[in-house]
Every structure is written in C-alpha cells, then in structure tokens.
C-alpha cells in the first residue's frame, strides 16, 4: 500500500502541477465570468453548465492525450518490471478522477446555490438527491467519452497535436450541428452536449427526458468500452516506440 501511495505521489510530481491546476483554473475562470454575467443581468446557470458538460471534458481529453500516449522515457519504461500499460492506466485514472472530483465539487456548489441546470421529467416530483444525481450525468457522459476517445486516438494516431486537433474538431462539430444531432435518431448515442446546447433544464416532457437519459447512458458506456480497447493498444511496444519519434 505504501509503495502504491509512493508511486501515486511520484506520478503526480511527474505530470506536474499543470495537470492538477488546469481544471481548478478553468472552474475559477468560469466563476469569475459568471459573476460578470450576473452584473450584466444575464442568468448564468446555462453558462455554468457548459463548463461542466463541454469545457472540462475537452480539457481533460487534451491533457490525457498529452500524458498517456507518449512518454519521454518510453525506452526505459518498456524495460522496467512494472508494465508500461499499468503506468499509463494509473496516469489516466489520476487525471480522470481528479477532474471528476473538481466537477463533483462544482456540481455540489451549483446545486446548493440553485445555479444548477438539470433536466427532470415534467410528470415526476423528484426529491433533491434524485435531481442532484441526475445532474451528475450531464458531465459524467462527456467526460468518460472524451477520456476514452482521447486514450484510444492518441495511441492510434501517435501524435499529441493530431489527437488534440481531432478532439477539438469533434467538439466544434457537435456544437455547430447540434440541431441536426438532436433530430437524427442514430446520432443520439454520440450527441455529447444536449443539456447545455438545446437547452434541457427544469421540467421537460417525459419523452425528451427518456431520450436524454438513454443517450447519457450510451455515451458513458461508449467511454467505458473504449478503455479496454486503449488498454489493448498499449500492448504494442513497437507502436509506442514509433510514436515517440513522430513529433
């Protein structure tokens, strides 16, 4: 246990404060901007929802692509007794869990201050915990999805820049074609940001809520399925070594 904790601390130091501070700084930046919006008489809940649903997952995915697909000491890593895929999985878990912690904390603050942006079926009268836990699905889905896609894509394209650009392209296309995604049934499992973009908050018809809920669950499932695929891709030392020289 001590060794594991030691390893955890070492990985944290290796990734640097930047990985830890980025989600915190994003949320602080959003909070300051929300205060500005309040002073401009613009309601900030939808804006704040975008920070959790749209911004944090993208930032996390870009960080994941930077820290898991390549390692400056990959040749050494592949010779040590601890397998490289275990090291990478550890890093991935640290980054994803840290972002999830920040997002959870932010959700609690937003819920407590009634600045949340959560859909619920119009026919149901839910209690506060039910609403809160439903709200977590707004960002859990995109977070899992982006982390999973970034993990696999980084190992496939073997370029951090290409990975970041492709993720950014997906992100922008999701925003620009939101109406098309909303009305096309087969695209619902990849419609990442419906809560903020459509927008879906407060009491909504049961049909819409069911669609929203099923697409959230499908997106979480997609993200989870991609993790073992990435794990398998990590078992390719030749690919990892080639990737190190690509940039």
């Amino acid at each position: 246990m001590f060794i594991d904790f030691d390893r955890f601390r070492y990985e944290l130091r290796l990734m640097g404060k930047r990985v830890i501070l980025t989600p915190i700084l994003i949320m602080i930046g959003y909070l300051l901007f929300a205060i500005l919006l309040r002073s401009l008489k613009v309601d900030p809940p939808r804006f704040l929802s975008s920070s959790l649903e749209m911004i944090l997952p993208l930032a996390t995915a870009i960080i994941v692509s930077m820290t898991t697909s390549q390692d400056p000491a990959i040749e050494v890593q592949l010779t040590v007794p601890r397998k490289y895929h275990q090291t990478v999985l550890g890093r991935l878990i640290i980054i994803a869990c840290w972002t999830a912690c920040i997002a959870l904390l932010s959700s609690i603050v937003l819920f407590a201050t009634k600045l949340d942006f959560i859909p619920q079926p119009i026919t149901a009268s839910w209690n506060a915990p039910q609403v809160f836990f439903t709200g977590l699905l707004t960002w859990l889905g995109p977070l899992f999805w982006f982390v999973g896609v970034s993990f696999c894509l980084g190992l496939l394209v073997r370029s951090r820049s290409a990975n970041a650009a492709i993720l950014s392209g997906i992100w922008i296309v999701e925003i620009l074609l939101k109406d098309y995604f909303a009305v096309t049934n087969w695209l619902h499992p990849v419609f990442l940001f419906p809560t903020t973009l459509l927008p879906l908050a407060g009491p909504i018809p049961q049909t819409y809520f069911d669609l929203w809920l099923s697409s959230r669950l499908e997106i979480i499932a997609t993200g989870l399925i991609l993790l073992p695929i990435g794990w398998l891709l990590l078992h390719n030392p030749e690919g990892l070594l080639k990737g190190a020289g690509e940039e």
Partner: protein
Amino acid sequence: MVNQLSLFTGVFWYEFRMQIRRRAVWITYTCFTVLLLGSFFELAFNIRQFAWSDAVVNWTGNINAILPICVGVLLADRLPRDSQTKMNELFATFPGALSIRLFGKYLGSTLATIVPMLIFYASGIACIAFQNHNLLAIPFGLETFAVIALPGILFVAAFSLAVPTIMWIPLYQFLFVGYWFWGNLLPPRLGVPTLSATILTPIGGYMISGLYHIDAFPVTNATPMQGIASIALLSGTAAGVLWLLWRYMKWEQARP
C-alpha cells in the same frame, strides 16, 4: 542582404518540408475532411440554388469556420520543439538574424499547414466550376481565399507560434479551441460578452458581408470599409504578435 534572403529561403523551405511531412498534419486534415463531408455534399447538391460566385463565397466561409482550428493546434508545438530538441542554442551561434529565422519559420510552417486545407478547398471550387461550366470560379476562389480566409489564418498562426513559448502546449490548444467557439461562433444574442460580432473575428464574417454582400453569421449588412478594416486589423495584429515574439526571444537569448 543576399545572405539574409538566402537564410530566409533556407529556413522557409526547411520548415515547409518539415511540417508537410508530418503524419499529424495529414491525419488531422483527413479526420476534419470526414467531419466536413456533410458540408461538401450540401455544396455539391444545392449548388444550382446559388449564383456561382455566391457558392464560392459560401464555400470559403464554411471552410474558414472550422479548418483554421487545425492550423492553430498543429502550429502550437513548432517553437517549443526547437527548445526541446536543444536547437535554440545552436541557432543562436549562427550569423543569421533571429527575425529572419522567425519569419521564415512562421511563413514556411503556416504554408505547409494550409496545403491540405487548400486541397480540400480546391475540390469544392472544382465542383462549383464543373457544375456551372464556369472556369472563372477558380481565380475567384483564389481571391476569396486570400480575402476571407488568409487574414484569419495569419492571425491564428502568429498566436499559435507565439503563445506556446510562455504557455503549456495542451493548455494553449484547449484555450485556442475555446476561443474559436467563443470569439467566432457564439451568438451575441445569448448575452455572453463575445468578440464574434466585432471586426476582430478570424472567421471572416465582415469580409464576406462587407466585400461580397452575403450575410455571414453573425454579421449582416457590413460595409466594405468594415471588411477592409477587419483584414487590416487581423493582419496588423498578426504582425504585432510576431514582433512581440521576436522581442521576447531576443530578450531570452540575452539572458545569462
């Protein structure tokens, strides 16, 4: 003078070759092309609804709404790479001026990064020329690219070269994409303060509306002067950023 010119051409072509041979550039544009195929087919199927010149302008606008993201993200690691590979110290011992080296790097890597973009753009222009039986679409397409897209690309490229010298690359890439949405595509009617309705938008709305008289979200009825002002502001800002970068690198070189 001759030495500086040969240095510039040397750096320019070296940077061009280095960037255009990167797998990352071609993989990224291939994926973006797949994402934009819908836009391409929309152009191909609805082409007869517009005058050919309007179709060219719309196609340039569509391309310029998304593909500069590739330019911004793919150029972000060019200068930090020189430091990582310990080339900066070596370059500092060479007789050539830093400003020429920097300018050659900027133009060479930018041109190489937009080559795949130009290929995809040219396929759309060829489609318009073919369906309208009008070869004038080709020179007009070159003109609209130079007027609508190029100032924004130069603007984006300057920032992408400069900012990562003081910022972590993934953070810059993330902020750049966020900026692209906030400063270009966010509707001002939402009430969130944004640059998307100002002339400082690399997406080219003021050029499209002011110079070609086609409404381009979120800009409507812009004057030709506003279009020209937008071009001047974007190009001037790019030049200013490059100048600041040159001063910063000189200061960094002079540090003990």
